[in-house]
């Protein structure tokens, strides 16, 4: 019904929309998601032909190219067949009209209804949105923000348009009103297609079957809402979900590095992307179908950084690691959870090449890993369990952090020193001479572990294996170290294989959890699913045994988590 091809909108030099392609069938709801300034509203206004800038491309509505129509012809369609509910309620409503008259006006103006019919329809809509009859005569300034928003929605729906463009329809509402209006919007007008522009993922979750993520005037990922929420495939989409507080995901909130900048050559997201390569700076990626999703990314979306295939490590007849198949995506945390002796550390050391695998293969960015050389260790680094052991007592703080650079023979001595000092800053350690000359036995446990993390980061690895990095630390220091890891992930796009016996900590830092028992991975999935709906008895036991601060008397010991049950449909 609506088909947009290569839509470009610019104001003078500023390109707001840069080649948008999308389709919308009758009765469908598509959400356009993006941060403010990405061009969501401009897209809506372009369809309404209300933008003042230069518009190129085609917008086909029921076969007619809207951009080719004369102003008169467009006038026929606007508000009767295509209607839009604007975002800023305060400015849009006419202050001298009552609510009822506001809604009657477009109907009468477009000559579709007699005054009488229009009044009935308007009253019906207001009642539908929960206005009591005595509020019909209220003026906009007498309405609450929520009521104004409802009035705007009623106005847009007045003529039963075939296409309804909703700009932030729920954003000005509180949570209860949001749920109510969300339901109403979903139930009503099943025959009209809706285009919902919003920055709010909850709105998307409530209203839309499909979603398209907009960034820098370009759609970078599009697909079925549930699929995108369960497994975002573009780095920006994932970052957006990580930054959004909700009741479904369990990982701590993370921001997105940098700020949106315009104009940008190449992929609009590349300055903030943590897996950008050279081509991303020069060439704009096209939106292409990729495994059931449309993705605009030169790297085909989030890449799989490391995968193991039937990785096995035996000690005599004991299989400490038994046919493990795991994958770690770029920029994500995979928590490997299991009790002591389940083979977690052996798996980590086998990946690192400190143990030779007995069987199985490993792939780093798709390339098979054979004998691990310096190149491999430049990309994969490990933080060991006990920092007191893993730091040599003969090396000062500076020497310890410089050691990997020395081994890899990178740069001059001065460059190495500067790099080491810079990384110390990143892990929030002092950069004073006094500190640089300290030896491990002069440092606290937390400082030692930070030093060990700095040492692992100094080569700018893409994957960090953290083996119980907080096992020897107090809870307060542990919290700081975990936060540090999350921040590093945000800033560097670091992938982390986080090894722990503590599922409560894993839940806070990981995107996915893999549960290990007797050398095998027995369960693996998104963290929230493992926490809320574990399939294996062992995982349930782990959850039951996990730390919980029960503050109320509860007979229900079976309740494994502090989380409420989760609605599958919600984000």
């Amino acid at each position, binding site marked *: 019904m609506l088909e947009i091809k290569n839509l470009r909108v610019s104001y003078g030099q500023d390109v707001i929309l840069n080649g948008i392609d999308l389709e919308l069938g009758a009765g469908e709801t598509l959400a356009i998601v993006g941060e403010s300034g990405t061009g969501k509203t401009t897209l809506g206004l372009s369809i309404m032909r209300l933008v003042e800038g230069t518009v190129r491309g085609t917008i086909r509505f029921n076969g007619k190219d809207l951009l080719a129509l004369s102003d008169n012809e467009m006038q026929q369609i606007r508000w009767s067949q295509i209607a839009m509910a604007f975002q800023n309620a305060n400015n849009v409503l006419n202050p001298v009209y009552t609510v009822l008259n506001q809604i009657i006006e477009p109907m009468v103006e477009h000559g579709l209804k007699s005054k009488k019919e229009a009044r009935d329809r308007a009253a019906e809509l207001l009642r539908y949105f929960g206005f009591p009859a005595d509020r019909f005569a209220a003026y906009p300034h007498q309405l609450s923000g929520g009521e104004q928003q409802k009035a705007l929605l009623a106005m847009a729906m007045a003529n039963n348009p075939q296409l309804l463009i909703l700009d932030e329809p729920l954003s000005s509402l509180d949570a209860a009103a949001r749920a109510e209006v969300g339901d109403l919007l979903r139930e009503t007008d099943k025959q009209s297609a809706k285009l919902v522009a919003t920055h709010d993922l909850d709105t998307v979750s409530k209203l839309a079957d499909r979603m398209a993520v907009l960034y820098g005037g370009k759609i970078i990922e599009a697909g079925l809402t549930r699929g995108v929420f369960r497994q975002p495939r573009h780095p920006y989409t994932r970052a957006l979900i990580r930054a959004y507080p909700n009741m479904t995901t369990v990982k701590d909130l993370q921001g997105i590095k940098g700020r949106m900048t315009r104009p940008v050559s190449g992929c609009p997201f590349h300055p903030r992307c943590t897996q950008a390569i050279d081509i991303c700076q020069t060439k704009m990626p096209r939106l292409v179908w990729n495994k059931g999703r449309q993705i605009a990314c030169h790297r085909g979306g989030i890449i799989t950084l490391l995968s193991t295939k039937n990785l096995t490590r035996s000690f005599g007849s004991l299989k400490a690691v038994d046919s493990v198949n795991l994958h770690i995506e770029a920029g994500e945390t995979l928590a490997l959870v299991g009790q002591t002796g389940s083979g977690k550390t052996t798996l980590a050391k086998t990946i690192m090449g400190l143990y030779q695998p007995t069987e199985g293969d490993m792939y780093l960015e798709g390339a098979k890993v054979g004998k691990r050389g*310096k190149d491999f*260790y430049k990309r994969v680094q*490990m933080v060991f369990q006990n920092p007191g052991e*893993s730091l040599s007592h003969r090396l000062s703080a500076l020497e310890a952090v410089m*050691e*990997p650079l020395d081994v*890899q023979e990178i740069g001059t001595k001065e460059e190495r020193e500067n790099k080491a000092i810079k990384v110390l800053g990143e892990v929030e350690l002092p950069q004073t001479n006094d500190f640089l000359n300290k030896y491990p036995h002069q440092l606290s446990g937390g400082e030692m572990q930070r030093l*060990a993390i700095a040492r692992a980061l100094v080569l700018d690895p893409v994957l960090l294996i953290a083996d119980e990095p907080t096992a020897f630390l107090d809870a307060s220091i542990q919290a700081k170290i975990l936060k540090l890891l999350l921040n590093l992930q945000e800033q560097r796009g670091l992938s982390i294989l986080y090894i722990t016996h503590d599922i409560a900590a894993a839940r806070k830092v990981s995107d996915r959890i893999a549960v290990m028992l007797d050398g095998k991975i027995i369960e693996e999935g998104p963290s929230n699913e493992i926490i809320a709906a574990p399939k294996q008895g062992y995982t349930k036991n782990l959850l039951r045994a996990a730390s919980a601060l029960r503050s109320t008397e509860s007979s229900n010991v079976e309740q494994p988590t502090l989380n409420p049950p989760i609605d599958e449909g919600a984000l």
Partner: protein
Amino acid sequence: MHIDLKREIKESGPGKTGLIILLLMITVALAAPILAPYDPYQQSTASLLSPSWSHWLGTNHVGQDIWSRLVFGARTSLLVGFGVGILATLLGTVFGVSAALVGGLYEKVVMRIVDAFIVIPMIIVIILISAYIRPGILTLILLLSLLSWQGGARIMRAQALSLKERGHVAAAKSFGANRFYLAWRHIVPDLGPILLVEFIYGVRRAVFMEAGLAFLGISDPTVVSWGMMMRDALSFSYLNVWQWWLVPTGVALSLIIIGLTFIGHAAEPVIEPRLRGVGIA
């Protein structure tokens, strides 16, 4: 594990004594040309003289000044001692540490060679070989080193095997370090104190062997050596020359060996801390 070797030696009375003796001997050896009034090789017709102002310890059977020969003999003794000490410790470390790090067939071969050498009585072999080739100082150092590194190699391997399981060694490996780097930067520094003890006992053994071979008359006769001096003195045992010829030489040799023994004993708690507090009986 912070072991301070200096403190270990300083705090032991015999350790201090040993150190003083050794330093004294080194000073004598270094200052030999100043301390010796005559060329130790210069022969004269005045043989078998008694001590006098011009010849403090008299002269030997070919008219050489015994004091000058005693002073220059310290050079030979210490040169061979330290030369062998350094070389044998080096060989022991290289083979011991590399066997531990490389492992596999290499380790097996090296350690079986070590076993074989330890089983053979070294002194007999050295005497046999020396009797044939009459080694000079350099050859003697090489010969003694080649035949005495094996015991050290065993100790180094055992230590390296335990050190290589340390966390910081695994960490260095995970930066891509090769075995040479691991050995040089992480394992050998931690072997330090043990190396020193090995070295000191190596020196002692070599000083003793050098004197012994010379005494048996199977070393290079042109080199001044305490062992040879004692042998020569003994052939005039029917005269009273032994008082200024045999005794001072024997005392000098004993002093070096006692000094080294004391130092080694004081440093031993480094290898085995349980020995700490157990004095020399």
